[in-house]
């Protein structure tokens, strides 16, 4: 009797392991299937040009997704990713075009602005945080306000006028390809690896996930929540800055509207990829694949000639579908889970 239950548990254990891993595999499967379908049914889909269009798009979305992911991991949320992006974009553009700064200095300045915005967020979250509230309510409120502040500074400086006249070599980066593959992927991949390294292989990354999982327990174990809050928000700000710099290179000008549509995708990519909304668990490869899926979906809509007026509606459906599937997975994982703990 005992033997058969042990065997049963082992079998279910393996199934659970596969189910947990299947998230990334699942997304990959959807991507492959969708790509195949699109390649066969649409003329212009399976071309190198289109591949790079998708690649450029998902490189940016992946980094934006990662910017949100690191905050989700520590149990918060960052509504200001788009606003930081916009502010960094016009700062870098303005420095290059108006003050004629060299590219490298302007980029560093942009990253610095992103880090400062993140630091501001983190500092304020610490100030305002009420232990009775969950961390993500506080971060929601603070970043809601700070998003307004950053956008306000952005618009106040630029008066909603885009900045043209960026250095040519800067603009051409986004069009370059190495071996036929867009350079932007080659920028995104090391960024993703760095984030993964920080989250999974460093002590501070583990502390971030600990705070996200159970902030009270983490605090009692000696983790400084205030330091982690500031650190993770700085990382988030820097990632948003990187994404913004790539975007203005692609656009060829610094538009104050950069970042306006980022909010939905910044949540969609991590959630599709298996990052938990409540915190404590992140999935970097999942976030990247989630961004790929979103870019693929957007690109497909264009090929399918879906009216541009319906695109927003479909984006909303996509995020519902993604989270819904995630919920089903969690529910079934929970069911299996009950068999593991005898």
């Amino acid at each position: 009797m005992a033997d058969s239950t042990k065997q049963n548990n082992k079998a279910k254990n393996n199934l659970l392991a596969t189910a947990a891993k299947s998230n990334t595999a699942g997304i990959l499967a959807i991507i492959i299937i969708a790509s195949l379908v699109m390649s066969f049914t649409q003329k212009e889909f399976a071309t190198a040009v289109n591949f790079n269009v998708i690649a450029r798009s998902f490189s940016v979305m992946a980094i934006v997704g990662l910017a949100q992911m690191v905050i989700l991991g520590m149990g918060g949320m960052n509504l200001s990713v788009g606003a930081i992006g916009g502010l960094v974009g016009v700062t870098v553009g303005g420095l290059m075009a108006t003050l004629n700064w060299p590219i490298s200095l302007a980029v560093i300045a942009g990253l610095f602005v992103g880090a400062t915005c993140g630091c501001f967020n983190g500092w304020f979250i610490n100030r305002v945080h009420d232990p009775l509230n969950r961390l993500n309510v506080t971060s929601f409120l603070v970043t809601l306000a700070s998003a307004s502040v950053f956008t306000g500074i952005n618009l106040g400086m630029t008066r909603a006028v885009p900045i043209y006249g960026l250095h040519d070599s800067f603009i051409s980066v986004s069009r370059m390809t190495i071996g036929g593959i867009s350079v932007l992927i080659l920028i995104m991949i090391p960024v993703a690896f760095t984030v993964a390294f920080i989250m999974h292989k460093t002590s501070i990354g583990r502390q971030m996930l600990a705070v996200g999982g159970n902030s009270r327990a983490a605090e009692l174990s000696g983790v400084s929540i205030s330091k982690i809050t500031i650190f993770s928000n700085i990382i988030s700000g820097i990632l948003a800055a990187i994404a913004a710099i790539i975007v203005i290179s692609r656009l060829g000008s610094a538009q104050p509207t950069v970042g306006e549509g980022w909010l939905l995708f910044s949540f969609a990519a991590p959630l599709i990829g298996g990052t938990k909304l409540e915190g404590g668990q992140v999935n970097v490869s999942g976030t990247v694949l989630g961004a790929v899926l979103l870019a693929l979906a957007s690109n497909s809509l264009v090929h399918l000639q879906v009216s541009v007026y319906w695109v927003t509606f479909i984006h909303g459906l996509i995020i519902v579908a993604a989270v819904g599937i995630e919920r089903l997975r969690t529910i079934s994982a929970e069911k299996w889970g009950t068999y593991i703990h005898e």
Partner: protein
Amino acid sequence: MQNKYVKRIIREELLGIIIALTLIILVLVFFAEGFASSYNLNALSKTIAIIIVVGLSQLAVLSIGHLNLALGSMGCVTGMFTGFLLQEYSNLPLFIILLMGLLMGALTGFIQGAFIVKTKINPFIVTLAFVSIYIGLVTGITKGEVFTRQPEIFMAINRTNILFEIPLLLIISLAVAAILIVLFFRTVLGRQVLAAGDNLKAATFAGINTMYIVIAAHTLSGTLAGTAGILQISRLGAATPTIGADWLLISFAAPILGGTILSGGKVSIIGTILGAMMMSTIVNGLFLLDVSHFWFQTFLGGILIGSYEINKLRRRYLLQK
């Protein structure tokens, strides 16, 4: 016992915001050219009217500890729908059109609430998705069209003033607030909502059907968002897809300035009204003081952050008691 204590806290908080508001108004009367003119006050009152209802829409879900990110889109759906009816079906009695508009608002809220309850997906994500779903529906169906023809009787609502030049819009808005006060504090449903917001488990054990409460709260939020949308199209004289686009921040700012806490269970409708007044007055003042309108966003964010600071001080003060 508990009730009296809560009432006293609210009254003390309201005192603080009343003082702040009075000071701001005094400053503006003396330093901002044209603030005290009847034209400006009239326009300001109309803005306040809309912001009050937007704030109340968010308040409806804050009461159970949820957030409604989609209220701008809900207002847009209702506003556009009502605008469409006003233009294409102007032969219908106005009262029927308005009723249909409100029902549409209720429907948008109901769908969202039912969705949350049925799928048990995190409410934040659901409302985030519905932002896109509803606004996408509007743009998808209307393809960017705006509705500019309104029947004379509807347009008259915007022009009507009662008593000392108080706009009808403001009276309507205050009436809505009064209805909500009755709803929350004098009806069984209202008490149940507040109980559920305060402590969901306790409410469930007390026999309250929390599923219905969630759906009810979101439906109410949708209805109020719809009301704000209709007030907005009255003010604008047209129904455009941009309605509600900038409502998110102010929908939180008004209740928070007014002392509503975000974990649920405690609402202050008077506070929301005062919060709406404070925000609109400050923005109006900035406009009159010739501050570039691009900085308004920064100010709104700053006001919101300021209110968190004040809340913190309040909490410290309360704990000391």
